[in-house]
């Protein structure tokens, strides 16, 4: 015989089912750092920052507070404190609702990668992924009584990478074959200038290209208008430097965009 419950009891049972659903979903095994396709690359957060990579040797790139720096007075400081505790790094995936939202965004291919370092001051990296673009916004919270004179975002690049700016100036060490193919495809001549400081080459260009024979796809980086670029050939690091950064509401915003362009190598053969 069916028992008919009062409306309140019926609602009570529905609430029980809701609670069961929440308990069930809380146990869902998820990845702390889901990876999202970024053109021919894959983007993800990892313990060091926001990375994008291919499953080829020497084809991973990292945006990280460990290599980004700020100049206060005469001293340059990394954006993350040395010997910091684990709690100084905040990644999504630690709490149930934010993790779930991030996973659903990853599923839709529109993930927002978020990485924050909390010491000595808060720096938040937010990477918004389109089909082949990664727009990075870095928010640096200025410490009280400090006046940064310079702040730099960096990108660690890989062995064998060739870096050319949009006017065709070669900023990295040369790889003649890669350069030849690039010239062939773009029909632009690459300028191999000998500068005074060959280790750290400077460019005022607003767009850079990273080419690698090992890697299908070309990386284009669109630089923020207020920045200039230094390519450090020894440390294999591109620095996007903002001199006299504008401080708004005690924060400095840095923006740049990474675009993965279609593979040019296939078309040469």
């Amino acid at each position, binding site marked *: 015989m069916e028992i008919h419950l009062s409306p309140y009891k*019926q609602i009570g049972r529905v609430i029980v089912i809701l609670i*069961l659903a929440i308990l*069930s979903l809380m146990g869902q095994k998820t990845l702390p750092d889901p990876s999202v396709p970024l053109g021919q690359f894959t983007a993800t957060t990892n313990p060091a920052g926001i990375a994008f990579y291919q499953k080829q040797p020497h084809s991973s790139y990292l945006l990280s507070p460990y290599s980004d720096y700020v100049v206060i007075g005469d001293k340059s400081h990394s954006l993350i404190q040395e010997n910091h505790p684990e709690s100084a790094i905040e990644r999504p995936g630690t709490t149930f609702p934010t993790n779930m939202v991030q996973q659903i965004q990853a599923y839709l291919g529109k993930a927002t990668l978020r990485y924050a370092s909390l010491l000595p001051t808060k720096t938040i990296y937010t990477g918004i992924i389109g089909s082949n673009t990664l727009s990075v916004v870095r928010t640096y919270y200025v410490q009280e009584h400090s006046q940064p004179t310079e702040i730099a975002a960096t990108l660690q690049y890989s062995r064998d990478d060739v870096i050319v700016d949009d006017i065709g100036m070669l900023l990295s060490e040369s790889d003649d074959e890669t350069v030849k193919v690039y010239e062939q495809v773009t029909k632009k001549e690459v300028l191999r200038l000998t500068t005074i400081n060959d280790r750290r080459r400077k460019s005022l260009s607003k767009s850079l290209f990273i080419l690698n024979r090992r890697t299908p796809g070309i990386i284009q980086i669109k630089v923020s208008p207020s920045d200039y670029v230094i390519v450090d050939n020894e440390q294999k690091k591109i620095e996007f430097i903002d001199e006299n950064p504008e401080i708004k509401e005690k924060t400095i915003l840095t923006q740049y965009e990474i675009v993965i362009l279609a593979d040019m190598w296939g078309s040469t053969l």
Partner: protein
Amino acid sequence: MILALVAACWFYIFPTLIGRAVIGWFKQKDSLKDFFLYFISGSLILYTLAIGLSVFRLFTPSLFYSILVILTGVSVIANGVISSLFITNKHHTHHHTLRTSNILIYSFILITISIISFVIWNNDVPVPYGLNWDMFEHQTLINLIQQGTFSFKTSQISDTFQFDGYSSIFHLLNAIPQIIWHPEPARYWWIIQGLHLLSSVCASFYLGYVVTKRIIFGFIAAIIGAFSFESYVAYATLFLVPQTFTAVCFAYGLGMLLEQKELLAKRLVWILPVLFLFLFLNHYIIGSAAIVLLCTVVCLLVLFQRWPKSYRGIVILLPLITFGILTFFTRFIDLSAINGGEALQYVYTPQKLFEFMQVFFGNALIFLGIPGIIFSFHEKDNKYRIVSIAGLLVLAVVVSGIPYALKFYVLGHYLIGIVMAGGIWLFAKNISSKIIQCCILLFLTLWFSIHLLLNAVYWKNDIHYDSFSTHYSQAELDAATFLQAYDTQDVLLLSDPATQYSLEAFSGMNSQGGAYMNNNTRYIVGKLFRYPTTEELIQELQTIQDPLMSKSHQRILLVMSGRLFQWINLPEENQQDITINIWAPAPLSYKQRNDIEQFRNYHNFNKIYENRDLIILEIPLTY
């Protein structure tokens, strides 16, 4: 695409037509469950026919095609006559019309649930891409059947199968629509897996309905079944492979058995042996387990009829005793001796199993399973209770630590799904408001959709190709099309395990072992670039032999793909490990193309094909 759709439907329709053409004469009317009987009977008839032709060495593509065409014509006519005989029964016609409206509504809901589940899983897997890794080996076998190679043993058809885990019935049933309709295999598999999901959702619904005689319970079971995907080892719903096909047939068989009013009804005397034979042929281990479970169910039905109050003890004791016995005996099994040591890879600790459970459906098994068992004590009808016991038995086997035990969960999918549905029903059964009941069903769909969605994100994390998740690329399919037109006589395909596995399936060209290539072949491919002279390389290549080829090959088509380079970069022990593969395709980089050019020029090999992901070189072995 339409051909693929028709062919995929033909997989289910043709055996059903054959079965009905034979059995229909002995019946007065059709009921829905009869179609399952027609399907398995028809399948067995077709398999017997193929085996017969093979025994007399008459299994040739042209003859088999002709027989299939004749059988199609005859069965269509016979079915027409049988239907007209049924229609003359007025009572039956009236009854049928009344039920048709309900059936249409239920079918619409079940199709909708299946489509939602299919779309969630395949959101980044458009046609013709796919994620069913095992599909390649099955398609390879299907290709060989189409070419006229047929045997009861799969290992005698292709060297991709080194272990006979099932007969070739599953492959024959898939070969028949491909012989008749010639669909593109990749599209065929994409669609038929959607149909398999639908059949699985209907099976959950049917079982749910049979054990409680409540339509709403059927829908709860269908929703849980549709969105719970065991994405490791078991794969019950979204991948069509012999074990999942066996499991869905088991679920229908179990439903049919529970629906019988009399246990010793005449029809069971012939239905059960036919069903058992079909289950066993489709998968020896899972089929046998299914048979054991069905026999257990029969025993429990008898037991509960005689001693109605014995169920409380049995619910708890039987799974515990099973677990204890299996755990005890597992300690004496030498796992390294089973299937070349592969069994060791498939023994999971309780922690790992718990992790899998959380990937599949979070904590739902705990928070719905426990109320589900409690519900079994409340429910007056024994059928739900019996299914619960069978489900707990499967769970006991899964956690017992015997190798490959998680595979048995493919049967558990249907049983545990019913237990979880019981967990919901424990709270929802006395809710009289239809609106609230509908809301609960919608909420359940949302809840389990999220589980499936998160499961998909987790599972697909590392198999991206451009913006898709797939085990093969369009470039590989294009290469396979090129190879189909190539002279396949005395040629062997060679590449890394994954590339040759996929190309062999789509092109029909033979390789040594596909993804299960032997150690010698792995060794040679692993150091392909390290042979100092062409003579040495060719001498090594000559040692690659497919034991099933009647004469040795004279040429090798070496497929140098992005995957091959990734595989060559693996440590040697990983190259020798059959469980490690390059799961996603990869385009060739400029450097890799350059390396191939240098390799080709050095050895003076011909390049016969090239695209974004691969270059094919022809290597004559008569150097």
